[in-house]
């Protein structure tokens, strides 16, 4: 006869309520672990999926994810000349927050180096990759933009031609892929008045220097587009991504780039490490701290409940001792109840999580190793929380039955 389950049947309401409470707490603990895994996955998603072997970024920076990096777009061409390099692409990425259909729309504008990269590598759930050099975009489903949706950014209108699922930037905002030139013009879109003011400023600068006075034609140039002025730097991009030829020695190629003083080279793994060590680290510690606190709280709550359940039975426990029951029977009664509350709470947490976690605004990733370690923790807190009750039960004298 199992005394623990008989008692539970008798005190079902209280037991059920306790289990639900513990279950909810454990769900939050589980969810926090999942949010942490989600952070990591979202942070590293783009770096892993985009298929670059090496990243060339502004010298002495740790860009383009962990901090801002600016390199000239023509670094692409220099990189292609290095032996072992199969291709080089510009990496343009920036987060914008605009208004669309009266609601704020926050997205990561991600450039694809048209024409070699049309986004064929992007896993689509609907639609197609880019087919033209301008005014098309592939959007993540989380942005809520349907296929065929027209999106006005800056002076131009872009059409959503493809949809992805779960492609988000390190901040959790959905990715939107454009060609690099579109991405740059979205980023550097300047209102007409701004353009007029800039041209005036150029003209004033040229007039102030001897070359402007000697070559009046230059003053005409100041009114043209920036690309028509050789004295202005080429457009800047965040980074250049390099893919290696099959069989090329990555270390060798990286060593070559490392000798270029104007840039810094990182492997994909180094980029991932930079992301995790920097951006994710504080969030990870914060979540970890919360998890520890919640586990401690769960233990205390469970210990109190097991203790009061034991106090309620203390007279019966004294009677069992009086009848000669071994300690094992009494410890078993308390421990089994604690384990049952822990196990049922854990099961409830898992079950509730399957409904709740997908509705969280950011990705929650529940991985088997995390589930197993939480199960071990729950086992631990069940045992720990029963100690107080067990101690109380062990210390009661059988003649307590008489009082």
């Amino acid at each position, binding site marked *: *006869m199992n*005394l623990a389950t*008989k*008692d539970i*049947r*008798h*005190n079902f309401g209280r037991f059920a309520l306790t289990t639900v409470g513990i279950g909810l707490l454990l769900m939050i603990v589980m969810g926090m672990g999942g949010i942490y895994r989600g952070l990591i996955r979202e942070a590293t998603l783009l770096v892993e999926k985009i298929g670059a072997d090496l990243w060339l970024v502004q010298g002495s920076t740790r860009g383009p994810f962990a901090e801002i990096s600016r390199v000239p777009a023509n670094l692409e061409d220099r990189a292609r000349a290095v032996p072992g390099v199969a291709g080089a692409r510009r990496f343009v990425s920036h987060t914008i927050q605009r208004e669309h259909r009266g609601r704020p729309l926050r997205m990561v504008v991600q450039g694809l180096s048209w024409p070699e990269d049309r986004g064929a590598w992007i896993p689509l759930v609907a639609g197609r990759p880019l087919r033209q050099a301008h005014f098309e975009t592939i959007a993540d489903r989380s942005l809520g933009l349907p296929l065929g949706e027209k999106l006005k950014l800056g002076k131009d209108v872009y059409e959503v031609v493809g949809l992805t699922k779960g492609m988000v930037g390190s901040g959790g905002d959905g990715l939107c892929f454009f060609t690099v030139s579109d991405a740059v013009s979205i980023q550097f879109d300047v209102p007409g008045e701004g353009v007029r003011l800039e041209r005036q400023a150029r003209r004033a600068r040229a007039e102030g220097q001897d070359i402007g006075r000697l070559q009046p034609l230059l003053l005409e140039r100041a009114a043209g587009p920036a690309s028509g002025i050789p004295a202005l730097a080429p457009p800047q991009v965040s980074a250049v991504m390099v893919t290696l030829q099959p069989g090329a020695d990555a270390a060798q190629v990286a060593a070559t780039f490392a000798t270029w003083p104007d840039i810094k080279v990182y492997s994909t793994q180094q980029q991932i490490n930079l992301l995790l060590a920097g951006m994710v680290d504080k969030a990870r510690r914060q979540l970890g701290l919360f998890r520890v606190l919640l586990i401690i709280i769960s233990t205390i709550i469970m210990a109190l409940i097991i203790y009061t359940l034991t106090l309620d039975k203390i*007279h*019966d426990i004294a*009677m*069992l*001792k*009086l*009848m*000669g*029951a*071994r300690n094992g*029977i009494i410890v078993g009664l308390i421990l089994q109840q604690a384990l049952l509350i822990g196990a049922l709470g854990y099961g409830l947490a898992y079950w509730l999580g399957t409904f709740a976690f997908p509705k969280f605004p950011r990705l929650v990733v529940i991985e088997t190793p995390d589930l197993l370690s939480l199960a071990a923790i729950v086992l631990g807190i069940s045992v720990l929380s029963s100690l107080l009750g067990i101690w109380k039960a062990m210390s009661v*004298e*059988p*003649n307590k*039955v*008489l009082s």
Partner: protein
Amino acid sequence: MTNAAADTTPAIEAFNLTKVYGSGNTEVVAMKDVSLTVARGEVVALLGPSGAGKSTLLTAIGLINPPTAGRIVIGGQPVMEADHALVDLRAFRRQHLGFIFQKSNLIPFLSAVENVQVALEINDVLPRPARSRAMELLDYLGVADRANNLPDALSGGQQQRVAVARALANEPSLILADEPTAALDSERGRQVMELFRKVAHERGAAVMVVTHDHRSLDVFDRHFEMEDGRLKNGTERNIEQ
């Protein structure tokens, strides 16, 4: 069932039991120099005014309230020397003693039959035989029809009979009862007392009952009287002339 009654070793031998509660100002001498012997198959009453030390003596012999001084021998085996246990008390209680109190002290989350069954399982009887033995006992005590009710659903008398069944479960050689009939009407009380007598005589168990109920004294083979912690009538006075 057992031929223990034929054995001449006494069921209980107590030598110079003394119990002092507290110390200094609050010191109470609850039992002073009590010696007695109870034979197997004998049913004895323990009488005396409130505070005389009856419960103190009964629980000392029951090995749940160690005396301050003295010696207890049960079934020929020395078990207590002052407050020092000579055997594993819990195991000894499990195998040899049965208790009944004024309150039935049934475990509230177990049904009547389970309350009896648990006493058997504690003594390493397997669940199935324990169950059928428990049913037999309830039947013997006339409460088999309420076997599956929780104690709450039983009347005081029925609860007490289940408690008696539980005390008898492991066929103890010594049954100790402290005012077992106080909560019962006189007819039910008498039935329980007669049951003790039946058990003692049929099974050779010794039964010691603390009681205030003078109407059923004729059931007992002998009675002891206590006053101020002392045994008034020394050893024996047969009331069954």
